[in-house]
């Protein structure tokens, strides 16, 4: 009996190579050999929190409806990393944070993250976790209408949406735009990116959201790991171009190899 699952040999090799590339990139990051470009959408988070302090209005951080057990888990983790950063900034600068929740398994983790941020800043007494991180609903449009209502009543100065989003993305982006909130949108769900692009002030496209946690940490090791993504993308690009040229010439060797 074969130990490896059929047709997953190449994906396994690719996964191991990704692991090696990430390790190498981290080592290079430690040595300060890796510099990354600025990501305006992530730089703007501090501006949003500062704006809300000046205006005396709250900041919303919405991490989407994802859970830890589906294929969007990495997006949820990216959203939680940003929540950690946003809550730290809010505690430090004195902005009121609201992060309504839709997933019961993410709720306690999000609550712990925000509590920890406020504790680290010595502002735990300013946090009302149940009021600021309310569980609205686990169903899509009940959750959406809850957030739309909160946006209309509280008129937040800023809204940060990083995580997995579905059809509700358009509702959120427009509702917050209408109350004059400055917005950052970021999702890896392809159909929702145009909605964010249409109405948000800044958009994280594609893999930028996965780099967000590392980027805002400022930790050279983590920043180094972002380089692994680019190396891998270059390899995929080279393979894609080569495969397309060979396939045009009637040679399907690359396609056949990737199916192994």
């Amino acid at each position: 009996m074969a130990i490896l699952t059929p047709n997953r040999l190449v994906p396994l090799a690719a996964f191991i190579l990704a692991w090696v590339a990430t390790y190498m990139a981290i080592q290079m990051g430690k040595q300060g050999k890796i510099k990354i470009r600025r990501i305006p959408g992530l730089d703007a988070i501090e501006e949003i929190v500062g704006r809300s302090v000046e205006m005396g209005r709250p900041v919303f951080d919405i991490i989407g409806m994802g859970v830890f057990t589906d294929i969007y888990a990495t997006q949820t983790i990216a959203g939680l990393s940003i929540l950690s950063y946003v809550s730290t900034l809010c505690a430090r600068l004195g902005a009121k944070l609201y992060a309504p929740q839709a997933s019961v398994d993410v709720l306690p983790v999000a609550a712990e993250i925000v509590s920890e941020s406020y504790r680290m800043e010595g502002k735990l007494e300013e946090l009302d976790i149940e009021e600021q991180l309310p569980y609205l609903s686990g169903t899509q449009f009940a959750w959406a209408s809850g957030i739309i209502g909160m946006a209309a009543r509280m008129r937040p100065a800023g809204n940060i949406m990083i995580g997995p989003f579905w059809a509700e993305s358009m509702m959120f982006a427009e509702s917050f735009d209408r109350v004059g909130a400055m917005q950052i949108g970021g999702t890896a769900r392809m159909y929702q990116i145009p909605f964010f692009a249409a109405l948000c002030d800044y958009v994280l496209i594609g893999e930028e959201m996965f780099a967000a946690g590392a980027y805002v940490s400022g930790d050279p090791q983590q920043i180094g790991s972002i380089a692994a993504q680019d190396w891998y993308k270059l390899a995929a690009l080279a393979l894609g171009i080569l495969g397309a040229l060979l396939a045009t010439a009637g040679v399907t060797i690359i396609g056949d190899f990737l199916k192994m």
Partner: protein
Amino acid sequence: MDYRRDIPLAITFIVGVIAVLDYYTTLEAVTNTFTVIKNWGVVLQAFALGLGAVNLFRVHGKRVSERTRDDWMFSAWLLLMLVLFVVVGLGTGQYDASTQYAWIYNALYMPLGSTMYSSLAFYMAYGAYKVLRARNFEAALLFITAVLVIIGNTPVFPATYQGFFHMREWIFGPIVSGAYRGIRIGVGIGAVVLGIKTLVGLETGYLGRR
């Protein structure tokens, strides 16, 4: 050693490695172990559901009792519905399969959900209006492309001249597919690298302690 940090990281690593092995190998021991872990996940989620209900009761119960906001009646309605669904589901003994439960769901929740979903048309129209204002060259290009796609999607135009349909197909094919796949590859790679970072304990943002 920081137990509050290291124990969750160790659990993440062990469970993550088992999940990876389960995907790539056919080892029975791994499959069985991962099935047990998934079952634990289901049990934990059930507990988390109770936590969500408790959160709802505390937040909205407080609003109702204080009546300080002008939306306390919505909180009261939410609590009433929450109790009603639980009582009907448990009372009939058939949970969500009971006729009464299905009636409440279909008569109350479904129309509301459908209404919200249909309202997306207005949100889209507003979004399209915002994005399709030709303020600069790029926006003008987007506007022209959008108009061509709309023409290609509206039956009267391709019926008059088939070229409109082919033009739309060409926009969706070589142009949109190329960009779409580029982003998709980036997303896939980004997710893999973030997954690896989470497994090795480099990505700890989800723990709330850097």
